């Protein structure tokens, strides 16, 4: 007997297996998730838009195709949520901003085309910090998302919606994007799994751009294997994206299954000195150390490595990102799409309407970063700011390259703290930026990184373990991550999420 709850507790891999075996239909599974959304998303507010009709239509089509024996993608019929920074034709897309309120894109992002071609029902669009700028989703123009572990706390950001949706069993799979940690940090504070792929390995065509040289889309899931499966679906070369790699897509699921045997003999694991010092919560560090012990027991060699230029990573990031973003966000001016705001007084010229639209349509954090970025690029300041930051980037890449001569993967706690309370860091932008201190170097170098749960900190809230691999070696993340996951879940007697409080279900 399958009660709706049961279906939502399944991993994507398990659900896919049941769909393939004909034990359950995609329509049932999709309906179950839509019901769950209806039941809990009031308080959680992970979703900005729920596309029930479209999702059920896809589910029905999949069921029919399966009944007729058509070959289907392994994930066909498994519902998925998509971060609202990804363009979806026919579904409203806001990037968490009021300036795009009501905009319905006339085209699909490449990764959405892949998802649609594989026939995963799209449940809806998830909440996020406005234009992906933030670490708590509090900068969304459409209200906060609440951490399912504690509804008074942040779910992380900028992709708090996708992580919360997955943590609250509203979806087994979700798409996120990561520019400085926006997939990994929410994963850490919600007890879920998130991966930022190698830069260029997943198409950015259709991702509303924040920082072009840092953005990557990736999987948001509850297990490492699920992330591997989703990653395999969305990765691959795209001629529409000139920064897209032509490499064939490795078999990430195979790497995850290999890791799940729990044997890491010969794997060299580097602990980055600069990524676990001051500012890291003791409980977070303790869970990290315990995870290292498990890796050691699994046969891995743990060494300490120093990446001395990482201390400049945050500064470089908060120059490169705002500079690129200030240019990427210039297109939002009320002329072609989105809202148009006229100035309160004076002539409504194009110039003044643009300024009024952007003044009213953008939130504080976005304005902050656009002004900072415009400043960093302006005449006379380029060399000192943007130019210098790009040099720091070279030094950070060199640090990684040096570290990887001695190691196969690098590890660190994903974020310094567990989920803080909503409102706690809103008045201190710099304090907010520090959430990403461990994740940012990864984006600057373009290497891949994963966060998976390391356990509960002393405050009973999830902490994350970050695994980093060299560029193009994403498979290593899955092997090491799956191994650790297996060892930890054995210790816990099941996934960490089983200890999350049950959310109140609306009638």
């Amino acid at each position: 007997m399958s009660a709706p709850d049961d279906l939502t507790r399944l991993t994507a891999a398990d659900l896919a297996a049941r769909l393939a075996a004909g034990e359950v239909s995609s329509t049932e599974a999709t309906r179950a998730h839509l019901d769950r959304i209806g039941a809990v998303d009031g308080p959680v507010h992970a979703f900005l838009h729920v596309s029930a009709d479209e999702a059920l239509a896809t589910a029905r089509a999949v069921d029919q195709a399966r009944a007729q024996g058509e070959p289907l993608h392994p994930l066909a019929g498994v519902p998925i949520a998509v971060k609202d920074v990804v363009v979806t034709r026919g579904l409203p897309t806001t990037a968490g901003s009021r300036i795009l309120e009501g905009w319905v894109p006339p085209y699909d992002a490449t990764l959405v085309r892949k998802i649609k071609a594989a026939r995963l029902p799209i449940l809806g669009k998830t909440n996020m910090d406005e234009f992906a700028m933030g670490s708590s989703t509090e900068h969304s123009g459409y209200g906060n998302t609440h951490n399912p572990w504690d509804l008074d706390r942040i779910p992380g950001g900028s992709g708090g919606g996708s992580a919360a949706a997955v943590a609250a069993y509203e979806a087994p799979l979700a798409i996120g994007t990561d520019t400085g940690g926006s997939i990994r940090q929410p994963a850490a504070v919600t007890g879920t799994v998130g991966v930022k792929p190698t830069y260029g390995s997943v198409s950015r065509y259709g991702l509303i751009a924040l920082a072009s040289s840092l953005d990557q889309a990736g999987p948001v899931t509850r297990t490492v294997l699920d992330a591997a499966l989703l990653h395999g679906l969305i990765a691959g070369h795209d001629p529409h994206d000139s920064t897209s790699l032509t490499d064939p897509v490795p078999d990430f699921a195979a790497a995850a299954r290999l890791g799940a045997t729990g044997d890491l003999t010969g794997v060299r694991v580097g602990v980055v000195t600069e990524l676990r010092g001051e500012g890291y919560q003791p409980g977070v560090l303790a869970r990290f150390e315990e995870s290292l012990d498990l890796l050691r027991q699994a046969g891995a060699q743990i060494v300490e490595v120093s990446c001395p230029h990482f201390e400049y990573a945050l500064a470089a990031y908060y120059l490169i990102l705002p500079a690129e973003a200030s240019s990427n966000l210039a297109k939002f001016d009320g002329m072609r799409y989105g809202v148009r705001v006229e100035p309160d007084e004076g002539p409504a010229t194009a110039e003044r309407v643009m300024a009024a639209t952007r003044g009213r349509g953008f939130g504080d954090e976005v304005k902050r970063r656009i002004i900072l970025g415009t400043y960093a690029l302006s005449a006379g300041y380029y060399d000192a700011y943007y130019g210098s930051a790009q040099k720091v980037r070279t030094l950070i890449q060199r640090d990684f390259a040096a570290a990887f001569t001695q190691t196969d993967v690098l590890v660190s706690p994903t974020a310094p703290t567990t989920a803080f309370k909503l409102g706690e860091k809103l008045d201190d932008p710099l304090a907010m930026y520090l959430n990403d201190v461990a994740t940012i170097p990864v984006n600057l170098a373009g290497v891949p990184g994963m966060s998976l749960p390391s356990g509960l900190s002393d405050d009973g809230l999830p902490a994350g373990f970050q695994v980093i691999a060299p560029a193009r070696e994403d498979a290593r993340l899955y092997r090491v991550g799956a191994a650790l996951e297996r060892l930890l879940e054995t210790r816990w007697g099941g996934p960490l999420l089983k200890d999350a409080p049950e959310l109140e279900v609306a009638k």
Partner: protein
Amino acid sequence: MSEPAVAYDEAVERYDPVIGIEVHVELGTRTKMFDGAEQYFGADPNTQITPVSLGLPGALPAVNGTAVEYAIRIGLALNCAIAESCRFARKNYFYPDVPKNFQTSQYDEPIAHDGWVDVELEDGTVFRVDIERAHMEEDAGKNTHVGGATGRIHGAVYSLVDYNRAGVPLVEIVTRPITGAGERAPEVARAYVQTLRDMFRALGVSEARMERGNVRADVNVSLRPTPQSPLGTRTETKNVNSFRSVERAVRFEISRQAAVLDEGRAVVQETRHWHEDTLSTTSGRVKSDAEDYRYFPEPDLVPIVPDPAWVEQIRATLPELPAARRRRLATEWGYSDPEMRDVVNAGAVELIESTVAAGAAPAAARKWWMGELARTAKEQGVELSELPVTPQQIGALQALVDGGTLTDKLARQVLEGVLAGEGTPEEVVAARGLAVVSDEGALLAAIDEALAAQPDVVAKIQGGNLGPVGAIIGAVMKATRGQADAARVRELVLERVRS
């Protein structure tokens, strides 16, 4: 709008003009610079756009390889060095016809740089213009201003934007300051733009029709007291839509700036607009620090590193450029410089080339096209190429002369017939019976008749006075309706008389 108080001749006497020209050419590729939207003339508004050329959120540029090849062709034709490696850059500014509110262009890494081109003025003087750079960029959309008194921007109530043109590939060519042209600066400017236009067509990279905006020129003008003085403040004049406008705009600016300087005022560094109706420039946007473009390398595109072998391949496929071709033909044809210049200015080069290919000697071809046909064209107020006669027909006509069937005089009559639409030269000859009388018997008969009619002429001729021969020839020509070869008639007359 201020009328210059200084006459042009005076202005160039007191000041040394320095000019600079920026030419934008739209490349004739099938699709746009950064996306697969097609570009062709006359499409309905906003039907040639993809998410990329509309600048939709999430869109990313992808470089058109053919456009890059065309840009390299232009660079090579301009004797430029092709960059070993170059990148695109973002030029950030807000304007409704720029959908991303930045233009993807090239900043400090142009695809081609440091070249030159020789420009021929009408009197044959050759002037070398140094090229600073040629770079790739994308075009903006088109605004139509609605409302307001004249439909121009000031006073317009709103604007309508068509993004069909947004993203069309452009190459921008920038000269170094052009010095030493003196009073001929306006001519040089015009000749430069014309040379470039001809070059683009010869290279096959653009239809290069100025009237369609395929080629646009902005002219920079500044004055300085002497050629040794530092460069003066320059103005940039836009909206110069024809070769004639280029020359006139430069001329006007020189006069205007001279007047300003004469009054002890300073020339304002600004963008000006050329007006063909009033033959003047007016003040536009003041160029100030407000235009901080915040250039940075385009993060969505990767560097272009042209393979040297590929560049050489392109170089090998460059066609002979118009100037080089003209020099070669002049040598082959044996024309003097002034003769060739006249031919070029009359637009007769291709016509003569075809006529020579049809068998006529170059001198003969020139004689026809620059003589009788040029006269006729002028009378009718048309171009040579518009006359209803083909080079092949001229070739045939000359062949009839060469073969003795026609004299020059007869040939001219045949030509008249052809121009009048009576048919080919052969047909006109047959229809009008214009062939030279080659039957010597008939000629002798006519000669004898003429001599018999003027008996005292024979004695005079025999006595050494050859004057009256002309009269006999005249009589014979009349008798044969002009279809005798006058030279042969003369020979026969003398033979007859002396026998």
